[in-house]
């Protein structure tokens, strides 16, 4: 039965030595079936969090320029903030305007796309909206969201309860008025998606199937199999396309433009393929560029898409936007740790809320499966690197088992095919059957908790600039709960779209197009003694092989 590839003997996708360890998981399953370790006390949580990458010493430094001067951030983020721009004043021609929409939206994930639709619904004609994307429209973290969207719509649930779960999960650092907007709008957002034709998981009578999310006190998660983000994204993208709202692709923003006096008036876009720049003059600009997973903070693999490189934070910060909670990073407890081809990829929390258990080398369930994400991630790191009860892969990574066969023991045969087709397919491509065997997991860099400080309407401290989704800060405090990210995108995409539309309709917005703020920022960098060694935004990561890079000649 064994399959021989590349010299190592594999059985059912695993090398023989891992196969032996899996037999311990099989043997102990019956014992663990009705046993769940209790949730940690607050003290136990505090103790294990010392091993969380956010709290472990190192990996951070002080920001030395700009509105958050003196604050701490991850080294990889501060490196980009303390970097020189791609273009400076005088290097490009700002007098010839290529696009002049009322509302410019930068980033076409769930947040940017919903902002465009709601701006249109609020009276901005489609031709006065422009949505620009770094990759294709929808190539974003949104489309990869697996688990679901939270909304307190069951009679036993309430917006208050959602509020408490969210703000406690965020370690009470969230902005209360912003969280209020999030939870109060949630049912309306679900209704909006239904009217647009989104297919959520349903009971026989039409009610939503609602599942647990880590850190919540009640079942509140609305899912579309394990393709929730894909379904939500497909539906609203189709709506945007049907409406004919202008959308350009492979055209990232490399700088915002301001009137020189703390007001955003447009942006410089750059054609990723030809290298040509374009100038946009806009009355309102909504930044929905997502997060920073591809910076591989602290050297972690990531669940994020190829373009998650912190661009929005970098360009908004130069324009004077204040950041918030930028020091905290969410590591998803269960990224794939094996096989090497999928390391870091997301294994949705819904697997655990459907019964899958983290299990160590000795077949022990060692942690409550649904702690808040930071606690759960730290507990997995402790199991692997302090208690040394992890499993080491052929490439030297460590992980613990996620006992997925328990899902079918608890929910019946066929459940994984129905609820987790994406996960099953991903492992099956590498000959692993997650219905029969456990999968190996380890924390992976997942989410930018903070970002550009927002208010309940997506407004920033800079006039003319709105934010929505992962690029923003204040919604999730210092740790986001499962199911609140797609919700954040849809709630604040909507609110930003409406608020920007009102701003435009009241006759405000617009002004001179300058890069004066960039000139000022460069002076600050020089004064702080930062040498022009780094430039940002970086737009894309670089994974080219070192051997090939070493022999490259830059000709054209």
């Amino acid at each position, binding site marked *: 039965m064994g399959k021989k590839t590349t010299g190592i003997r594999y059985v059912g996708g695993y090398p023989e030595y891992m196969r032996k360890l899996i037999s311990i998981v099989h043997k102990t399953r019956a014992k663990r079936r009705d046993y769940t370790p209790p949730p940690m006390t607050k003290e136990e949580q505090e103790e294990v969090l010392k091993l969380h990458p956010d709290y472990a010493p190192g990996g951070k430094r002080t920001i030395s320029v700009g509105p958050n001067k003196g604050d701490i951030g991850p080294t990889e983020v501060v490196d980009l903030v303390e970097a020189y721009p791609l273009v400076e004043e005088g290097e490009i021609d700002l007098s010839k305007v290529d696009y002049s929409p009322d509302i410019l939206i930068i980033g076409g994930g769930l947040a940017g796309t919903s902002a465009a639709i709601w701006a249109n619904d609020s009276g901005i004609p489609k031709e006065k909206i422009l949505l620009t994307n770094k990759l294709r429209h929808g190539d974003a973290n949104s489309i990869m969201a697996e688990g679901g969207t939270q909304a307190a719509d069951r009679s036993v649930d309430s917006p208050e309860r959602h509020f408490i779960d969210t703000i406690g999960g965020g370690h009470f650092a969230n902005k209360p008025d912003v969280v209020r907007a999030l939870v109060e709008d949630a049912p309306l957002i679900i209704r909006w998606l239904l009217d647009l034709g989104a297919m959520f998981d349903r009971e026989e009578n039409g009610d939503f199937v609602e599942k647990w999310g880590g850190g919540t*006190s009640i079942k509140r998660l609305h899912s579309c199999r394990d393709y929730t983000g894909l379904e939500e994204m497909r539906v609203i993208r189709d709506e945007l396309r049907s409406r004919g709202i202008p959308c350009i692709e492979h055209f990232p923003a490399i700088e915002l433009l301001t009137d020189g006096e703390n007001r955003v008036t447009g942006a410089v876009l750059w054609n*990723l393929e030809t290298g040509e720049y374009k100038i946009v003059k806009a009355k309102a600009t909504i930044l929905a560029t997502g997060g920073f997973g591809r910076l591989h903070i602290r*050297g972690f693999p990531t669940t994020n898409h190829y373009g998650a490189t912190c661009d929005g934070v970098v360009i908004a910060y130069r324009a004077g936007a204040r950041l918030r909670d930028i020091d905290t990073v969410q590591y998803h407890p269960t990224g794939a740790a094996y096989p*090497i081809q999928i390391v870091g990829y997301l294994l949705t929390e819904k697997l655990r809320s459907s019964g899958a258990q983290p299990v160590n080398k000795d077949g022990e369930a060692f942690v409550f499966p649904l702690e808040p994400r930071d606690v759960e991630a730290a507990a997995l790191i402790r199991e692997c690197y302090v208690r040394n009860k992890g499993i080491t892969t052929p490439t030297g990574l460590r992980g613990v088992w996620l006992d997925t066969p328990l899902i079918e023991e608890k929910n019946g045969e066929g459940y994984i095919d129905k609820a987790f087709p994406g996960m099953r397919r991903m492992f099956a491509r590498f000959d692993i059957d997650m219905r029969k065997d456990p999968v190996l997991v380890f924390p992976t860099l997942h989410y930018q908790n903070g970002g550009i400080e927002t208010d309940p309407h997506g407004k920033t401290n800079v006039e003319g600039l709105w934010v929505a989704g992962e690029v923003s800060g204040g919604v999730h405090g210092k740790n986001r709960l499962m199911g609140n990210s797609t919700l954040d995108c849809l709630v604040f995409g909507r609110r930003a779209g409406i608020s920007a539309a009102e701003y435009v309709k009241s006759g405000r917005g617009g002004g001179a197009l300058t890069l004066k703020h960039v000139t000022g920022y460069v002076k600050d960098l020089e004064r702080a003694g930062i040498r022009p060694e780094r430039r940002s935004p970086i737009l894309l990561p670089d994974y*080219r092989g070192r051997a090939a890079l070493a022999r490259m000649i830059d000709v054209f």
Partner: protein
Amino acid sequence: MKTEESIMQRIADAAKAVTRGVDAKDIEHWVTIYIMGRAYKVPADLTILTAMEYAGYRFVRGVGCRQGFCGACSTVYRKEGEYKLQTGMACQTRVEDGMYLVQIPFAPAEKAAYDISKESYDASVFLKFYPEVARCVSCNTCTKSCPQDLEVMDYVQAAIRGDFQSLAEGSFDCIQCGLCAMRCPADIVQYNVAQLGRRMYGRYGMPVPKHLITRLQEIEAGKFRGKMDQLVAVPREQLEKLYASRVREAD
């Protein structure tokens, strides 16, 4: 260095191949692949996407989520000595020795414009917006080309019959990579037909849950307003108490 900090270092070192690219000295097993006809020796453990990067390609197109959800990296390949063309997502397909491959980074397919709130919930909607569905010759090439292993031809047939549920459920896992449409001899854009069908089914095929309607009415009537006004104003210590005293719903 403190213990916690050295643990972080060990984790980063172990993940280097994933976060910073593969180093040739760590590789035991190699294969030869042909990227648009040219041979490259690449580590055997890579996907088509990471193997192309190893070979020196830096993607600005034909790449998106890198995890099989977005459909940006459609790839066509043929194995040495075989006549058959195969399809896959570059980020989800392991390289094999003697693979000839090319990426299809864009599908120039038609997408109809419609307002689903104004359309009738029957088979005519497909003929109205995608009349070419009627040209399906049931050759099953679409199904064979689907990297998600969907029964594409079956859902196209369901659309022709006006069976929204079968179409919606059968096409649900579609990532809209475009490979079916690129291979279809009848020029049907299967994934766009399915998108229209799913939206129609999502809106008209299932009732709006009663509990959602009730909750929206409650919000509208201001049922939670007073409590929320209080909540946003309470000091942190009280929020901490409220959080600690939550009662978890029974499983």
